């Protein structure tokens, strides 16, 4: 016999009150990053010593621009989930924990918005 209330069971949150959402997001973003990181590594090696024009040409290719945008966004999502665990593990004050979590989220959003803007600017008008 379970001691859980029906509401608790329906919500499926467990004792940490956040359920398995964080766990799943971390795994799904990790799996998505495997092929994207391999693509990024091959691309980075291919751009070693490249001049500005060649780099611009590479990143203006639609497929490369889309893959780079996906890489940066999913990377930042995965990074936010990972840094959240590190902050929650080592920072115990409620105020400082909340402050660092918000600062970290602010950083990931700023980095993502800036990277997407840069990629749009590289792609240029049609």
């Amino acid at each position, binding site marked *: 016999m379970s001691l859980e209330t029906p509401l608790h069971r329906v919500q499926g949150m467990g004792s940490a009150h956040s359920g398995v959402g964080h766990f799943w997001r971390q*795994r799904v973003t990790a799996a998505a990053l495997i092929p994207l*990181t391999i693509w990024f590594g091959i691309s980075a*090696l*291919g*751009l070693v010593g490249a001049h*500005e024009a060649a780099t611009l040409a590479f*990143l203006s290719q639609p497929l490369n621009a889309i893959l780079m945008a996906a890489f*940066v966004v999913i990377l930042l999502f995965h990074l936010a989930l990972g*840094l959240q665990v590190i902050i929650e593990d080592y920072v115990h004050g409620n105020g400082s924990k909340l402050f660092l979590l918000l600062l970290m989220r602010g950083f990931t959003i700023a980095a993502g918005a800036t990277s997407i803007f840069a990629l749009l600017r590289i792609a240029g008008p049609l």
Partner: protein
Amino acid sequence: MADTPHPAPRVRPLSPHIGIYRWPITMATSIAHRVTGGGLAAGTVLLCWWLVAVASGPQPFNTFVALAATPLGQLVLFGFTWALCYHLLNGIRHLAWDLGYGFAVPTANRTGILVVVSSVLLAVIAFGLAYSGHGGYYQ
């Protein structure tokens, strides 16, 4: 009562401090996964900077490339290359565990050593290819 000497504190047994354990490979790889993850988070700033530099014209682009070419820049890039290789390979090891594979202690020890050795090899091969002129095939 005030001049009563304090009794000598009893020496109580302590559990061994983390510093005196021989580190099992699984513990070292776990800690390294978190450290490389944190390091790569900082390295994302470089990725973002590179994209902005490419988008901002020849001057910022050349500044970025010149800084990356300095010995310190190359050391930092090698560090991030190794960290990315390690976090990728050890991440695959973690995903295998999540699917229920590779939990036996001898297996976990073997895959741990495999991940450390291959991450170093991958990073060295990547830099070897770049330095021997086998990179730069997209220009």
